[in-house]
């Protein structure tokens, strides 16, 4: 039996053998890709299989991965948020400003999280309250939030964050296990439960598949979308805390270009860019794959431009493969 497809969207077929569908799923393909890259890296560089190397590797994706978890929900609901990197810039700048007024670490964290949520709520209000398309709104706020950061800082920088604050971006919980990677894993579990085990998650899928039908079924579409934008704002605020702590300083150009990396992770993770389908496990695996690829190629001193070509090709191949398989299967049937 094959999965039923409607308008290109994949509906899970509960009649299939669950073991068989697990083996043939997107996530198992990603696990294979991740393992393949891991083994290739181990052979390509003598420095890869080392606890500290593997620990350093995680810093390549943890901050972007945290945002990708929330972004996955937004994209599943049929919207997008391109302002995440600019939220980082604004949150980081305002944390730096608070530092100038003598804020301590808990206050700095509160500022980062608070600014993130407020920015997300502003996006959410424009999308759900004024009924504007999210891609237009967040392209606008992308310039707006970073613009404010540039007005406050100009070509200056804020530095001198306390050591207790730097720990968030540079500290280790146990041996080589960094705080960032622990936070990422905890957040991944929370988002997994939220999306796959709660009514809220089910409604997100329903909105992404057919917002009108969801509304007629009693789902408060606007309220859920508003919450989703607040969530990406919150995760961007948390990423701002980690990144600021890791860099030990703030410049208005911080995290430039992160939004595209985040969207890449989400799409590579198997979330449909049209909305309605996707999983958190896929996004976590995609984050890991991007970390493995960038770090592995870095160990071989491959120039950055080749790295971007590689990531782009990987994205296209991983997305094209299942579609090719499906086409072959349909032709056979």
């Amino acid at each position, binding site marked *: 039996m094959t999965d039923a497809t409607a308008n290109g969207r994949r509906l899970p077929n509960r009649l299939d053998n669950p073991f068989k569908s697990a083996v043939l799923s997107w996530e198992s393909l990603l696990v294979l890709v991740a393992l393949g890259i891991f083994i290739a890296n*181990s052979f390509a560089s003598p420095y890869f299989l080392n606890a500290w190397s593997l620990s350093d590797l995680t810093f390549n994706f943890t901050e972007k991965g945290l945002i990708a978890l929330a972004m996955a929900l937004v994209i599943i609901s049929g919207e997008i948020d391109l302002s995440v990197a600019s939220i980082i810039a604004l949150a980081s700048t305002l944390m730096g400003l608070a530092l100038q007024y003598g804020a301590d670490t808990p206050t700095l964290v509160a500022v980062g999280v608070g600014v993130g949520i407020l920015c997300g709520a502003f996006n959410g209000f424009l999308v759900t309250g004024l009924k504007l398309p999210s891609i237009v709104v967040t392209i606008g706020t992308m310039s707006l939030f970073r613009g404010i950061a540039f007005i406050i800082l100009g070509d200056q920088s804020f530095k001198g964050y306390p050591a207790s604050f730097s720990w968030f971006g540079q500290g280790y919980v146990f041996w080589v296990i960094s705080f960032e990677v622990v936070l990422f894993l905890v957040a991944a579990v929370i988002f997994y439960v939220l999306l796959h085990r709660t009514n809220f998650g089910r409604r997100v899928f329903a909105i992404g598949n057919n917002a009108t039908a969801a509304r007629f079924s009693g789902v408060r579409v606007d309220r859920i979308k508003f919450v989703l934008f607040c969530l990406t704002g919150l995760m961007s605020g948390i990423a701002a805390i980690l990144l600021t702590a890791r860099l030990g300083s703030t410049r208005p150009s911080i995290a430039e270009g992160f939004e595209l990396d985040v969207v890449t992770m989400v799409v590579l993770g198997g979330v449909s860019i049209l909305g309605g389908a996707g999983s958190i496990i896929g996004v976590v695996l995609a984050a890991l794959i991007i970390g493995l690829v960038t770090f592995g190629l870095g160990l071989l001193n491959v120039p950055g431009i080749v790295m971007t070509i590689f990531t782009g090709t990987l994205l296209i191949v991983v997305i094209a493969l299942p579609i090719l398989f499906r086409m072959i299967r349909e032709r056979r049937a």
Partner: protein
Amino acid sequence: MKLWKLLAATATAAVLLATPAMAQTRIALVVKSLGNGFFDAANKGAQDAAAELGDVEVIYTGPTSATAEAQIEVVNSLIAQQVDAIAISANDPDALVPVLQRAMDRGIKVVSFDSGVAPEGRQIHLNPSDIDLIGETIIKLAADYLPEGGDVAILSAASTATNQNAWIEAAKEAIPEKFPNINLVSVVYGDDDSVKSTEEARGLIAAHPDLKAIIAPTTVGVVAAAQVVTDQDLIGEINVTGLALPSEFKQFIDNGASQAVALWNPIDLGYSAIYLANALVEGEEAAPGATFSIGKVGEVTLDDTNSAAMAAPFQFDASNIEEFSKIY
């Protein structure tokens, strides 16, 4: 079990592969971004230094986009490769500090060059030049072609530009000692704006009929002044000089509006950075007042912040502008 065997085999292969690499010193030259002619030239110098030193391998690397975050990923992978030293031109003086401190904690020597890192994030910083050398050079550029002396004027950038003002002060101090027959008649400010710089250059020529040279220690002003001299048919009467990018300025050396200009030489900069990094790897201590040899470029002495100035700006004239205009 298979996986463990595979991992064990990999680890063995890793050790075998790693051993020959340990024999030589590996120094990473980390630049702001790849695909930049200035840094490609620095790499050329770095490779020359490696060849002279022998037993040194230079790894030329950097991110595609000139951001601190991307550069940190590059440094992370260099730490993992256990390179012996990192010579970096930083995209951000502060954001690179934590990761470079981690590199130093793991025994990697860190030198910054061109665009520096805050003192706590590196052991030595190599400036292309320093204020006194630049001030002296810009007057010398004019004086070399005025054997009998004469009137010169300075066309600067904004009157508030800190570095320009410091160079002009240094130039004024150098004149009575070293160039007694040079007479500085005026300093005007073109604000690094082509239109304003052109007007100011015209004003200088009108106000000082005996003017022999215009010195513009700014890449915008020097082009504007040379264009004015060309347009007013004053080639041969007024020599334009200063700090200029060879690629932008080549036409004015070619048409004779300028005899020579100067700027930092990226080849020497990359060369010297590798010499400094190698000296640290060989156990020399970086401390204020310490002196380091930088091969054919000479030697440098560290100041209070462990910074060093490489040399006077490098001179471009008809003999070498062709070559350097292709680089930057």
